[in-house]
Every structure is written in C-alpha cells, then in structure tokens.
C-alpha cells in the first residue's frame, strides 16, 4: 500500500498535536453539523477517572452540583451559569436555560461527566496522559449524532494501542430497548461502470481504472462485471448519491486533466425587455449630461418616510428583522435617499450636480407569492446655486421623447416632499407614474444637503 511512513503504527496515546487536533475537531463539529451545539453536543472524558454504567438524565438546576471544567470549586448549575453568562459559553446557555430540568450525564458513583450542551466536569478532564477515552454525544437529531460520533471515532481511533480499536457501548433507552453505539457501519453500493464516468467527462477510463481512482479516495472499490462495487465507510457520510462518488472519481483523476469540450448546443439569446430598455434609458440620461450613481437597496425607515416628510410611507416598505444598524431596516421604496446621500457626500464637485440612477425599488404587494414586488424606477437629481426645476422638467420631456411617448402630462401636487407650489405628478394616460419638483428645505436638511435640489422619479415598467 501507499503513503504509510516508517513510524506506523503511531505511538499510542495523545501527543500535544493530536490532543489539540482532537479538541479542534470537536469545536468544528459543534459549530457546523452541531449548529453551535443546538443540535449536537460532544463530551469526551478520561475513562480511567470514571466508572460505568453511565446515566443520561435530567435534574432541576439547584440539585446539580459539581466542579465544572477549568473552575476551582464545586458549584450548583445556577451558580456556574452566572459565571458562564460572562464568558464564551454564554451562547449555549439559552439552549436549555428555559427548561425546568437540565440534562446531566453521571457515572455509577454520581460523578458528573457533563451538563450537555454547556460544560464538562473537571473530574473527567482529558490530558496528555489519558489512556482511555469515553465519548458521549447528546443531540436533538439522531442521525447527526451518529455522524458526529462516527467522525470522531474514525479520526482518532488510529492512536489506539491496536490502531482503529473502538469499544462499543450498549445504550438502554427509556423504553427498555437497547442498541449498540457507535454504528461505524459500512455499506456496499453498486454502480454501473459506464455511467460512473459520464459526469466527470473522463471517457477513456476502464472499470479497473475507475476502481483504482475510488480506492485512492478511500472508497474501496472493485470491479464486478459491468458494475463497480464501492464500500462506503463510516467516515463518508457525505456520500448521499451516485454524484458524490462521481465527484471523487473526477478529483482523483484531477480536474485539470479532464479534456475540455464545448457543448454543441445552438441557441439564440433573448434579453429581458426591462433590462434592455433600462440600459437604453441610462444611455440617454448620460447623453443629457447626467452622471450615473449606484446606491444601496437597504436603508433606514426614516429615509423612506419621515426624512421625506411622508411619515405614513413606511407602511408600504418591506421590513428587515434584526437589522444590525439603522442602514438595514427596510428595502428602499424610492431611489431618492441614495441620490440625496450621494449629493451630500460630494460637496466638492463643480456645480451644478446632475445625477441619475435606474434601479429597482421594492414595495409590499398582497397579490404576489412573497407579498412583495420589484419596480424599475428612473430617478434624476439637479443640485446647484439655483434649484434647476426647469432642467429636470426638460429632462422628463427629453426622456419621454426618447421613449416615443406623447400621452403624458404633469399636474401640480401638494405632496409634502416638495417645496409648496413646486411639485407635480407625472401622468401617463390617466395614471400617475411618478413625480418631479423642488425638494422641500426640510428634506434637504434631513439629508444634510446644502443646495437647492430638483428631482424627477418615475416608474419605467409601463414603458417596457
């Protein structure tokens, strides 16, 4: 066989490296498949310090008394939880804290091995001189518990005096039935050899070569006529389907050795109308002397309501739960906040400032699957020594001309976002599709903009 070094079998027992590796594997398993210990929790103990049979039961917190790992004194569960609330164990307390009883694993003498999923007892702590290890896994998901235990046993049993020796444990369940743990089971799967190399694109491999490649990947395989018999061991819980085996074949062969070939599929491309039109409108706006900006879809609740002098507008916005900061509270219902923030941050630019953006906004909509809907909006802003209202009005006329639209007009509005007497709705046919006007000074103040601004914003979807 290949790859075995001269020191095999390894010196039995844990070295500092293998001990650290043992701890690290438990941490990783806790984090990933254990979902931060909420699904699976592992406890490893020095078997020589404890005595079976062991009991997995539960007690009211004040009745639990032991010396937790790395603490100096015996204390009750409530006492130790008070300490843990201030350190790295804090996130795990909530998994059981609301229960009237906490889980406990004790040995025949009442010595506490662990209080899953929070902490082990100091008594059975593992050290470099440990010669026998007891592993207990508690979980809310039996399958995942099995995977975790198989993984630990598979990884560390090689350090045993007789490598890969694991002593099974008989578990008696609450109903009296028993089973043996760990499973460490293997299964034999049969695959069609010709099929197996299709997905990897390795057309030239013989069944013997495929068997060889799989064995290299620790999936022991042998040829059986037209089929390949593959042994899938307890360390390969990732093999769910034939495609998992196919990937291993490709990896063993080497991705960079696979011959490349182009699919001979003739297709004619089709664009999304809304994107094609958006790109054309963007180019027209740039031709009119406006500079494009690209701003964030998420903003604060105030940005789409109070700061625009329309407090009730927040009701139509999609809300994010548990945002980290104010900037992630809602999905924007208008492109104005981003536009105004850009104007505010670019005070040193020569005037007038002429900006535009063509992008999606999102609003609540009870008629759709998710209860939300995207709309493609066009927004433009003029900021200068004077408000430039006639400029954005002219821009609207120009864009309508480019969209080949004649059936529109603007109509004065008393929308509080605009300076009194200087705001108008844009009506296409009989429907309002947008608005334009000089922004109210209070809006400018909220966004820290020191110049008068005129804005134009309308929905592009009716033109698609």
């Amino acid at each position, binding site marked *: 066989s290949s790859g075995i070094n001269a020191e095999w079998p390894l010196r039995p027992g844990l070295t500092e490296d293998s001990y650290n590796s043992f701890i690290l594997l438990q941490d990783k398993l806790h984090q990933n498949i254990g979902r931060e210990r909420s699904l699976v929790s592992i406890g490893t103990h020095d078997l020589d310090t404890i005595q079976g049979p062991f009991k997995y039961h539960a007690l009211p917190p004040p009745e639990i008394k032991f010396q937790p790992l790395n603490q100096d004194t015996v204390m009750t569960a409530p006492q130790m939880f008070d300490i843990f609330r201030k350190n790295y164990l804090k996130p795990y307390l909530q998994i059981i804290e609301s229960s009237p009883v906490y889980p406990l694993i004790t040995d025949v003498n009442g010595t506490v091995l662990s209080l899953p999923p929070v902490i082990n007892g100091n008594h059975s702590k593992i050290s470099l001189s440990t010669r026998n290890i007891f592993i207990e896994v508690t979980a809310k998901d039996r399958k*995942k518990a099995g995977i975790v235990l198989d993984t630990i046993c598979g990884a560390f049993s090689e350090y045993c005096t007789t490598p890969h020796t694991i002593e099974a444990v008989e578990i008696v369940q609450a109903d009296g039935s028993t089973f043996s743990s760990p499973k460490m089971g293997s299964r034999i799967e049969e695959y069609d050899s010709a099929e197996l190399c299709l997905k990897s694109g390795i057309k030239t491999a013989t069944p013997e070569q495929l068997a060889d490649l799989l064995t290299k990947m620790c999936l022991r395989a042998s040829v059986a006529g037209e089929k390949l018999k593959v042994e899938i061991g307890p360390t390969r819980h990732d093999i*769910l*389907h034939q495609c998992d085996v196919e990937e291993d074949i*490709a990896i063993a062969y080497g991705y960079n050795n696979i*011959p490349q070939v182009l*699919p001979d599929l003739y297709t004619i491309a089709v664009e999304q109308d809304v994107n094609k039109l958006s790109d054309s409108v963007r180019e027209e706006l740039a031709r009119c002397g406006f500079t494009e900006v690209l701003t*964030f879809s998420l903003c604060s609740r105030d940005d789409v309501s109070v700061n625009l002098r329309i407090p009730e507008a927040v009701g139509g916005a999609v809300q994010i739960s548990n945002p980290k900061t104010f900037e992630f509270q809602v999905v924007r219902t208008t492109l104005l906040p981003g536009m105004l923030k850009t104007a505010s941050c670019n005070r040193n630019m020569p005037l007038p400032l002429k900006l535009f953006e063509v992008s999606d906004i999102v609003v*609540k909509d009870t008629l759709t699957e998710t209860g939300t809907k995207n709309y493609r909006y066009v927004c433009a802003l003029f900021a200068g020594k004077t408000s430039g209202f006639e400029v954005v009005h002219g821009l609207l006329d120009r864009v309508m001309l480019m969209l080949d639209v004649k059936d529109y007009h603007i109509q004065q509005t008393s929308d509080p976002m605009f300076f009194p007497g200087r705001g108008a709705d844009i009506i296409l046919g009989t429907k309002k599709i947008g608005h334009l006007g000089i922004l109210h000074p209070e809006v400018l103040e909220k966004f820290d903009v020191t110049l008068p601004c005129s804005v134009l914003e309308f929905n592009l979807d009716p033109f698609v």
Partner: protein
Amino acid sequence: AVVSTQSGHYGRDENGPTIFRAVEETTDVVKDVLSNIQSKNPVPDKSVQDLKKRKLISSSVTKFYSVSKGEGFRTDIEKPEADLTADMLQDGTWKSKNFKDYNFTAKGAPVVGGCLHPLLKVRTEFRRIFLDMGFTEMPTNQFVENGFWNFDALFQPQQHPARDAHDTFFISDPQMTPKEAFPPGYLEKVIEVHEKGGYGSTGYNYDWKIEEAQKNILRTHTTAVSTRMLYKLGQQEKFVPTKLFSIDRVFRNETLDATHLAEFHQIEGLIADRNLSLGHLIGVLHAFFKKLGLEKLKFKPAYNPYTEPSMEIFSYHPGLKKWVEVGNSGIFRPEMLLPMGLPRDVNVIAWGLSLERPTMIKYGINNIRELIGPKVNLNMVQANPICRLDKN
C-alpha cells in the same frame, strides 16, 4: 627681529617703537587696477570681484540694438487675434490679421458631460459576453425570495449554517409566503427527497419544516431564480435544452469590511442539456473567461450544498502576475433536478462570480465603498475609462 605690516611697506623693530620704511618703492595695487579699469584695459576677474565686493566699482550692462523695419512694419497699433471668428470670414479680414501663438502644451477645455457608472459598464460587458454566447437572460427583478426557492428546492438542508440569521436577511414584514404558493406536487417531492431520499439518494433524514420554507428573505443568490427557471423547464411536455444567465443584486448578512458589503451583484450562467459533463463545463468556462482576457485556467475541488461535482475556478492574472480565484462552478445535484421533472440524462452545468471583484481588480480599487454607495467619488466616475474587459 622685524615685524612688518600686512602690506609689507612698513616695518617695526620688535623691541622698539620706531616704524621705518621696509621697501624703497610702494605699489598701490588697487589704484593701478582702478586706473586700468578707467582706461578700459583688461584686468583679472578676481580683482574685479574683490573691488565689487568693496563697492569701489560696480558693473553696468549696456545693450545695443540695431533696428530696421520688419515685414509687418506699420505706423498704427494692432492687437494680435486669439481666434478666427465668423465676422472675419464674412469680411475677409482674416487675411490681414495677426494671430497669437496657441499654447499647445496646455490642456484643452474640460468637457462637461454625463457618464455611466463603472460597475454598470462592466455589467454591460458581461451581459454582452453571455448574449454573444447565445445565453437567454432570466427575469431577476425580485429581491425578496422565500426559503423554499432560495434553499429547499436546491436540496440545501434546513439546518445548514447558511440559513442562519448570521448570513441571511430575514424579512419581518411580510414575514411568510403562504404554503399554497408552492406547487403542490413539487412541494411533496422536495419534502420527500430531504427527509427520506429517493431518486437514488439517501436524503438527509431529518424532520423538514414547512415554516422554514415559508420564511421570506432577501435572496442570498440569484440561483433562486435559476431554480425557478429549471422547475418551469422540467414542467414542460418536451425537454428543450437551454442556456440561461443573470446579473443582479444579492444580499448577505455577513461581517462588513473593505471588500464586503451587505449587497453585491452576482453573475450566473447555466446550461441544461443531455449528457453534459465536467468536460463541457471546463470548455464553456475557458470560452467565457477568454472573453475577459483570461486564457489560463485551473480548477480545484470545492463544496456547494447544491452542486456535485463542484469546482473553484482560478486564473493566471497577467497584470497581477499571480493565480487568483475568479469564480465557482459545478453540476447541480440530481436531488434538485429530478423532482422538477427534468429527464434523468439531463445535466445542468453552472457557474457564478461576483461583478464587484473583477471590477475592483480591473480599476485598482481597494475599498468597495469607493465603487458602490453614496461615498463614491463622482470625479472617479467621470474619469473612468471605456470598459474593455479583454484588454488588461
């Protein structure tokens, strides 16, 4: 002993007060030089410097010109013209006017115009590459997705870390998609393959919860849209092979830093056809990245919950002179495709990359906030050159 003065003309006995003549004749060197200068005789430069220092002489420069009438001699005053005007053309006076020299070393007048955003210029290029290769654009104008189409339909298990509040933005209002919105027959098949397996799979063997699928989120990838498109494809009477792409915004609730924002743009391409293999995927990737000027590609094994095999794509960047990761790719899992009704021999090869990363590499931008958001310097936007992805 004799002590003499500095000039050497006089001497004095060291011991006595008497001063006596030390030389017969004295020479007044300064007077001689001054006489010579006055007589316009040549004198050594050093002497001249000395006398200047002592302010005994000063130099004055007298310039002489000999002047004669030039070609343009005139007795009236004329100002030279800066520019040719319409009036001059009209009355023909351009023939007799003098024109000032033009300063060719100065820059021209700055052109004030509009311009497009750098990231979106790159987006346009990527769109063009896909269209050139015959890919049809997917409708991605839907930021809010539900767990079902973003995760479950892709065979991503419900207890997977990516479905955590750490990584995903959950929506509090509207919080859930109604169960009735999920296609009934298909929903059952998805639940079955997660819980028990089937279609040749062992499944995940856990208790699937409808509430997790109903939760509304901001989509974490545009693969949610690809999934919906593949489902529609699988529901068709007759399977028609297809090439699809999308470039649009996705949202991740991760830790923010200089190169990561909560929202960015994902580029995704996929091909669904019979008997596609990694060989085809590698071939398509070579063709795609060649259009970006990247001809050398290497592939490394990777993991995605919904593709198997999966490959990370690396390319040798000629400008940076090193291998950089340029994308992720794979073949969708059968557990995802078969419940959709796609034929067993149909494989879907797919790949994706972010739009921001190649843009930042191309334009040498280190902080993503200089590229997207309100803090972008508009001068940078206006000075940003034409996007030529294949020229480095």
